[in-house]
């Protein structure tokens, strides 16, 4: 569904993405992890077309993206920080998005009920709490029922109840065959929601594979400890030969 090859991006002299090769097949739930500044957000923003790459290519359903914009009909994105025009009401924002996307918002009511946003609909967005704004963001991302969903640290500002409902919702979307991509620093959340892990370190992919594989290879039980070990000791992790013959590290890193 999304194929990325040798993706590069620098901001000034700072190389953020140093040649990313990645394929995200349809229906896969992927968690993107990595330390702050590893390039997670830049990677997502490049796929979304917010950031223009310096080199490499992104193919979407087999078609190379080059200033395209229609492919975003298939994408729902929930940003890390949800801020909207202050004077707009929630209902107006939803109407505005509906007019802009020209797609049927089949899950509009369902999501509003699920996130208990009914009482907030007539309030201006500036009066909403951070968590409620996050929920509005989640509603906007999912209501058009797009086949691909991006969530950038989705539960950071949600209370436990909302967070639980959000995860239930994402799990349901996953079951319905949606491609889900989540970045998060909360590893337990990724364990629940995703079955595939991409570990970014310093602009390169350190690990790309099934969650189970990562756990067996690192000998840890929890994702958190496995990732923490990878972050702590990049050298040590580069050394062990893969006993079961599976490729653990991306090619570039071995060369480097």
């Amino acid at each position, binding site marked *: 569904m999304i194929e990325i090859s040798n993706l590069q991006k620098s901001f000034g002299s700072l190389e953020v993405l140093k040649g990313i090769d990645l394929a995200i097949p349809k229906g896969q739930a992927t968690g993107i992890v990595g330390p702050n500044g590893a390039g997670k957000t830049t990677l997502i923003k490049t796929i979304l077309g917010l950031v*223009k790459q310096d080199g490499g290519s992104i193919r979407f359903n087999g078609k190379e993206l080059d200033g395209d914009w*229609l492919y975003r009909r298939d994408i729902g994105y929930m*940003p890390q920080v949800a*801020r909207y025009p202050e004077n707009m009401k929630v209902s107006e924002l939803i109407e505005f998005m509906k007019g802009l996307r020209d797609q049927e918002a089949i899950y509009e009511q369902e999501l509003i009920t699920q996130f208990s946003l009914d009482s907030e609909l007539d309030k201006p967005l500036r009066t909403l709490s951070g968590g409620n704004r996050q929920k509005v963001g989640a509603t*906007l991302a999912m209501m058009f029922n797009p086949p691909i969903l991006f969530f950038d640290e989705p539960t950071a500002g949600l209370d436990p109840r909302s967070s639980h409902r959000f995860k239930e919702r994402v799990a349901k979307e996953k079951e319905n065959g949606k491609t889900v991509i989540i970045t998060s620093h909360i590893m337990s959340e990724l364990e629940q929601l995703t079955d595939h892990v991409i570990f970014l370190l310093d602009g390169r992919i350190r690990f790309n594979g099934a969650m189970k594989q990562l756990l067996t290879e690192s000998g840890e039980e929890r994702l958190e400890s496995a990732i923490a070990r990878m972050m702590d000791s990049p050298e040590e992790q580069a050394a062990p030969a893969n006993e079961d013959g599976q490729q653990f590290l991306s090619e570039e890193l071995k060369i480097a």
Partner: protein
Amino acid sequence: MKNLIHIIKNEWRTLLRGKWVIGYALIFLVLAESLLRFGGGGSETLLSLSSVMLLFVPLVSMIYGILYIYQSREFIELLLIQPVNRGVLYWGLFLGISTPLMAAFMVGTALPLAWHGILGVGAAESMLVLLLGGVLTLIFASLGFVLGLLFYEDRIKGFGFTIVIWLFLAVLYDGIVLMLIFSFGHYPLERFVIVVSMLNPIDLARIMVMLEFDISALMGYTGAVFRRFFGTAAGSLTAAGMLTLWLAAPMWWGLRVFKRKDF
């Protein structure tokens, strides 16, 4: 096209609800009203009004443009990830915020002129002042947009440049030109002065006002040279043509930056 209108409409509604555009219109209303009351009818009143307009409109428009970019960063990013062309989005946002500002100036100024009967008597002059204010609004709002996009991360720098550019174009420019003329008075400077005055949209607008009102004493050096060189009609036309170029240039620049920018 549908999306363009949709975005513009949305900006209008949000702005009107913000109420301060209405405040901006009220300022011009009070200003025009008091000038008309205390200064009598006459072209002097329109002239004073245009002087205030030449100083005030560029500053407010530019600050407004840059402030919009800084305030709406997340919203712009939300729009950018929708299936919308970047060009359409740029024009939607720009026209959506600059046209209410333009309308606020025009309506606020025109109302007192209308009920004092000036719009009927000095139709051409009043129209010119209103139109120039509108054009300057668009020019400087788009300059504000450009500055906001260029200094997306560095707000202090963005605002700094805004103030400096305004100070330079609205206040210092004429003084610098005069100084140059004073220092190099022995050389034939007419062509140079004409070129220099064309590089400043506020100067162009001022020249057009002065040519229309035909007040040599207030024309300033650039205005006088302009009239001697082109004559009133051709001078006005040249100035209007240059102003149109000025209108197109920052908008096009903004569009270019917007299309290539990493958000």
